[in-house]
Structures are given as structure tokens and as C-alpha cells.
């Protein structure tokens, strides 16, 4: 059962303070959205993938890929026909299917999508939600906004857990879920989807009850149980990730 993105651990990525990690994530976003050649984006993506594989283990690359593959295939199939400039690369009879511009754009989109996803994944996999809230509050975001973000992040995996739970409940009543034929897929998953939606809607007032009965809404200043790094430890992490940011932006900013 998936309950959240975060996995506790003691890897170098886990040990870094979440605040510089969030700042570095912003740098990654900027780097991927600056106009760059595909090979530059490839280097960025490869670097992020290498960091995840080395620090968290290669198996950790699979969860984002499992989620992303349908979108990656759609980008791969649908982008080239809309970009017709440049030299023709793939032709069938007199019809040009892929041009050099189409290929470049497809690669840029694919790498941008993969790189940003892996960047986000590296952060949410190694920062506990409570530390995320503390970091965002440190950056000046109001508590209510931080809480909304963390509850959203917590809700997505919890809905995934509900999905699996509903599938189990339906299996117990309907036997094996037959997903081989298209009509059966709709027949099988429609009640499951309906059930998950009902469960999600039912959860709204319940969540509000839980929040208010634990003091959400009070006007007094709120204290914090968890504590982030201070002084030299924070400075050290900041310097490490600043160096990484410079290294990442160098090829783009100086056209190297």
C-alpha cells in the first residue's frame, strides 16, 4: 500500500537540509525552462538520475517512470506531427513523418518532463512532509497555505491506497477483476472510480473536523515540534547546493 511519497532513510540526500533542496529545485526548474539544446537537457536529466540512483538506489527510478510512461509515449507520438520545420528525417512515400525540428522539440519536451519529475521526486522522496511545512514556513509562506500543500500531498497517496482498498472490496464481492476486454475494463473500474470519488467527498468534512478539534483556526501564534538545522550545518548544505546550482546553470548561462 502506498501511503506517502517520503521514504525514511539516511542517504546523503536525506541528510541535506530541506530548505537548500527546495531552492535547488527552483534552480532545476529554471534550468529546464531556459532555451537549451537537447544534449544540455540530457546532461541535466542524466545528472539528476545519477544522483537518485547513487544515493537512493536504482530501484527508486522506477516509481516515477511507472507513472509517467503513458504521458511520455503520448509526447513521443503527438509532438513530431505539429513541428514541421527543418530537414525531413523519417518519410513514408511522400509523407514526412518526422523532421529535425520535430525531433528536437520532442526530445526537449521529453527530457524537460523527465528531468523536472525526477527533480521533484528526489525532494519529496527525501523530505518528510512535516519538514516540508517547516521549510515553506521558513520561506515566509503562511501556515494555512503550507497545510493545504501538505494535506494535498498526503491525500494523493491516500487516495491511491483507497483505490487499492476498493479494488480488494470489489474483488471479494465480484471475484476476479477481468480487465482483458475493453468493455469489462469500463464495467470493472467504473464502480471502483465512483467508490473512490464518494470516499474522497466523504472525507472533506471529516478532515475539517479533525483539523479544528486539534486547534486549527486558533489565533494564537503556533509553535513547532520539529526543528530544522541551524548555523554551520545549514550553511554547509547551502554551499553544497549552491555549487551544484552553479554547475547546473553554467552551460546554459554561458552557452558552454
Amino acid at each position, binding site marked *: 500500500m502506498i501511503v506517502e511519497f517520503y521514504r525514511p532513510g539516511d542517504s546523503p540526500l536525506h541528510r541535506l537540509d530541506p530548505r537548500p533542496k527546495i531552492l535547488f529545485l527552483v534552480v532545476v526548474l529554471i534550468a529546464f525552462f531556459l532555451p537549451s539544446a537537447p544534449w544540455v537537457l540530457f546532461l541535466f536529466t542524466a545528472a539528476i538520475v545519477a544522483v537518485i540512483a547513487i544515493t537512493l538506489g536504482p530501484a527508486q527510478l522506477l516509481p516515477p517512470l511507472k507513472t509517467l510512461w503513458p504521458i511520455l509515449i503520448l509526447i513521443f507520438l503527438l509532438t513530431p506531427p505539429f513541428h514541421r520545420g527543418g530537414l525531413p528525417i523519417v518519410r513514408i512515400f511522400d509523407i514526412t513523418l518526422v523532421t529535425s525540428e520535430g525531433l528536437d522539440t520532442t526530445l526537449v519536451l521529453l527530457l524537460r518532463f523527465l528531468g523536472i519529475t525526477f527533480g521533484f521526486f528526489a525532494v519529496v522522496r527525501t523530505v518528510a512532509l512535516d519538514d516540508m511545512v517547516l521549510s515553506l514556513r521558513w520561506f515566509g509562506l503562511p501556515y494555512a497555505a503550507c497545510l493545504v500543500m501538505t494535506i494535498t500531498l498526503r491525500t494523493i497517496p491516500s487516495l491511491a491506497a483507497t483505490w487499492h482498498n476498493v479494488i480488494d472490496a470489489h474483488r471479494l464481492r465480484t471475484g476476479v477483476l477481468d480487465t482483458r476486454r475493453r468493455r469489462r475494463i469500463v464495467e470493472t473500474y467504473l464502480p471502483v472510480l465512483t467508490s473512490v470519488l464518494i470516499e474522497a467527498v466523504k472525507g472533506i468534512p471529516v478532515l475539517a473536523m479533525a483539523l479544528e478539534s486539534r486547534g486549527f483556526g486558533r489565533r494564537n501564534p503556533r509553535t513547532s*515540534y520539529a526543528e530544522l538545522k541551524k548555523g554551520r550545518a545549514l550553511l554547509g548544505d547551502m554551499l553544497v547546493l549552491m555549487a551544484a546550482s552553479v554547475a547546473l546553470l553554467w552551460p546554459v548561462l554561458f552557452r558552454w
Partner: protein
Amino acid sequence: MTNMHCPDTIGLDSNQGGRSVVARRAPGRRDDVDSPILSIDELSFRFTALEGSQGIPVLEGLSLAVPRGGRNAPSAPAGSILFGRADSGKTTLARIVSGLVPRFTGGSLGGKVLIDGRDIRPVPPYELMQSVGLVSQDSDEQLLTTRCDTEVAFALESLGVPRRQMRERVSESLQKVGLPDFAARNPATLSGGEKKRLLVACLDALRPSLWIVDEALGELDIEWKTRVLDIIAGAGGTFLLMESRWSSLAASRGTSFFLLDQGRIRARSTDPREPAFLAALTDAGIRQGSPRGSRRPANDGFLRAEGLRFRFDGTGGFALGIDMLELHFGETCALVGRNGSGKSTLGKILCGLLRPQAGTIGIGGKWGFKKLRADELCTKVGYLFQNPDHQIYLPSVREELSLGLRRQRVERREIEARAEEAARIFELPNLAAPPALLSYGARRRLQAATFFLLSRDLLILDEIDSGLSYREVESLIDALASRVPGIVLITHDMALAKAACDRILVMDEGRVTGDARRGRFESLEGAGGQAVLK
């Protein structure tokens, strides 16, 4: 009748065993030890009219007073126990007193609710948190964070408690409920009993004046029931326990006792052994009648599991190992054991929801024996989840009842007839009613009714007794037994197991350590069952 009409007079209930204390309270003074901590006068509540629930008041003319105890009055009683069946209105009452109803649910509320002499109706829940704390029946609906320590700390953060003090309280409270090593664990990964203990730790750290504990004991084994009751009674506040079944363990901790029935207080006492009060509890099905056992014809079928080995991914500690287990159809078998002993895991393996790493499961009879794959087991063995809300999701009672039959290609007219029959047997409201808005007891009955219609050989009922009175559980088992050959009841209630079942299996650390049939139940005490047989 509670003396609530004079604004500066608060009194204990004059019906409580003849002891009637009426004290003058100085205006604005909240710590008067003789005044009740909770006073409810002529409380009435009904939800906004919805299909299937029109015109049914949940509470009507309810009056009670919970005497102050704990740190506010060390020599006074520590707490009260409110007994009531699943549909009696306990949870609604708990939520009203906590300020959550009708704020989040809508509905019309009448009468007075005073905590420490203060009318709570205009006060939002976040301003009441130091006065009243609630442990709800469904723990999942109260969990907010992704770590146990931050879950306990959440309310303290809201109050602005300094970090050092907060750390001490969190650590102390987790220690008390036996979860000191779970600080970094995600509460969503805890068992039902562990979640309840975590919520008790949340209140222990917060230290409200009044603890309302709604069916907290049902999912706990005997050892943790005792410890949690000790924590609640020793926390320094006053407690109001809400229970659907008589428990001598809980009764020994309380000094005021109420029976809630159809939204009213039907009986009250200061002595839980008072014959008239006990008779009222028995009459309401809260106390058990005489042992009954199975009432079904003999059946030669059985389910056999051999060489089962199972371990969850990534959990080093727990391992299930069953060398040989036979469950006979035609009998009701209880599966008992401590929290975390593997009862639910075994149940989920037997119905095919979990695949064991080794071992075989099959069904046999005079005709022979056939091994079954996990996907085949789902069609032979049913499993009722601990939480009914994890199993009923569809928009109407009709759709819930007909889902399985539709998949079996039963004709529409036949489905309607069978759904109506099940609704009648299980006393469900009309078929168009939305399950999400039914009472807890009705949702439990609907959950059972869906399997009643499916012709399974064996049905595993995972702690379905939690939150139900003895009569409600026995009625459910009787109704299911009229159609389902074999029943396995997973429970922590030995009184229920002994009364309603023909056989008891004891589990400990993933293994079956005791097995006895009716007449020889006491022999289980020598087979590792001492902890659950008290």
C-alpha cells in the same frame, strides 16, 4: 432531572443512586468541584432531512450530568460510562459535545450543553480543545500527519506550547501507550489497535478537562484495554466512555453509568451492579444473555490451509506460519489473540486478498479436496473488513446489494427481489438510501447483507463486533448463518466468543497456539491463551 434551569446553580443528577448534590456556583467561577463538568439538558438533534432518514431524531430530550473528577476534584469520581447500541446516538452526542455537530454536518440542535458551566454551542471546536478532547470510533478520521510524534504534537503546536515542553509531553505520552519506538512511523501504517492507542496519546499530551472516548476499547486486546483504561482514568481529567457492550473492566473504572436508547437516557445509576440497571442493559442487548452456540445443521465441508508462510515486504518482525488449519463449515469459529498476532493477516490470506510466500489452501468435503488459487478463493471465502466504510462505497443501498449479483449475471427482477429480502432480514432502511449517511450499525448490517447474498462457503468477520451491542452482533451472526455454511469471527471479546461460537482458535505471534471446541474452552488457558482469556 438535571437542575439546569437556574443559571447560577449546577447540580449532580438527582437520580444517581439517591445522591443529590446541588451547589451554588459563583458567576464566572469554573473550578467548582461539586459542579458537573458536563451538563446536558433537554438536548435534541436531528440531521437535515435526507432520503432514507426523514423525520428520525437522533437525540430527543436527553439530559445527563457528568460529575467532575480527576485533577479538578481528586476525591470525586473519575468518570462516567454511557452504554448504548450502535444506533443509539452515542457518536452524534460525542460530536455535539466536542463542538463538531452541527457545525460540520448541518442539522437542528435544541437544548443546552454546558462544559464547565459554559454553553459550548457558539464556541468553535478549536476553542474547546482544552476543555474537551475526543477519541473517535473511527481512528482514521482523526489522523492528520505522517509521523506519530507530530500527530501527538499537532494540538500542542496549535496551543503554542514551547518546543522543549512539547517534546517531553510527546515522548511521555508515546511511552505510556507503548509506542515509543513508533515516533517516526506513519500513523497510516499502524494497526487498528495501535491507531487507537496513538489517539489516546494525543489526548494524554493535550490533557483536556473532559475526555470523551467513543468505543476506544473494541479493537484492543485485554492487556491494552486494561492499560488504556488506566491511562484514561489516571490522566487527571474526567472521562466519559461510550460503550456498546457491557465490560466489567470499564465498569470498574466509572462511577456514573447511563444507558442511551433511541436518543434518550433510559436508565442511570451510580452502581453498575444495581439489578434494575443491569436488567435495562440486558434488555437493550448491551449485556449478554445466556450462551447460545451454533444453530446450524451439520455440514461436512471444510477449508484446509497447509504450510502457510507469509511475511510483509519490508517488515522484518512479523512472520505468519501455519502448519495445518482446518475450518469446518457448519460451525462458528472464533479467532482470538493479541493486537498484531496475525489474525487479520490470516483472514486475508484465507480469502485470497494476500498471497502467502508458501503453502496451500483448498476446500474439501465428502467429495474430496481441491486446492484453490488466490483468485478462486475470493469466490469461495468472503471477508468483512474491520471498518465497514472500507467495504461499502456505492451511492445507494440497492447498488451495494446488487453489485455482486449483477456480476453473477442474475436477472434484474431476481436481483431486486433478493435485495429486498436482504434489506428486510438485515433491517436496512429503504433501498434508495445513501450508505454513507446511514448510522454505524446500519452500515455494518449493510456490509454483512452484501455477503449474505453471495453464497460464499466461508465468511470471515474481522472484528465486526466493534461498536455493536451483543444483541446486534448475535443477530448479524444468526442472519449470516442462515445462508453461509462456515463463519470465522475475529474478536477481542472472549465473552462473545464463548457465547456465540462453537470453537475458539488462539493466535500468538503469527501461529495458532490454541484450539478448543465448546465445553473445553477453559483448556485454552494452558495453550498460550491466558492473555486473551481473562
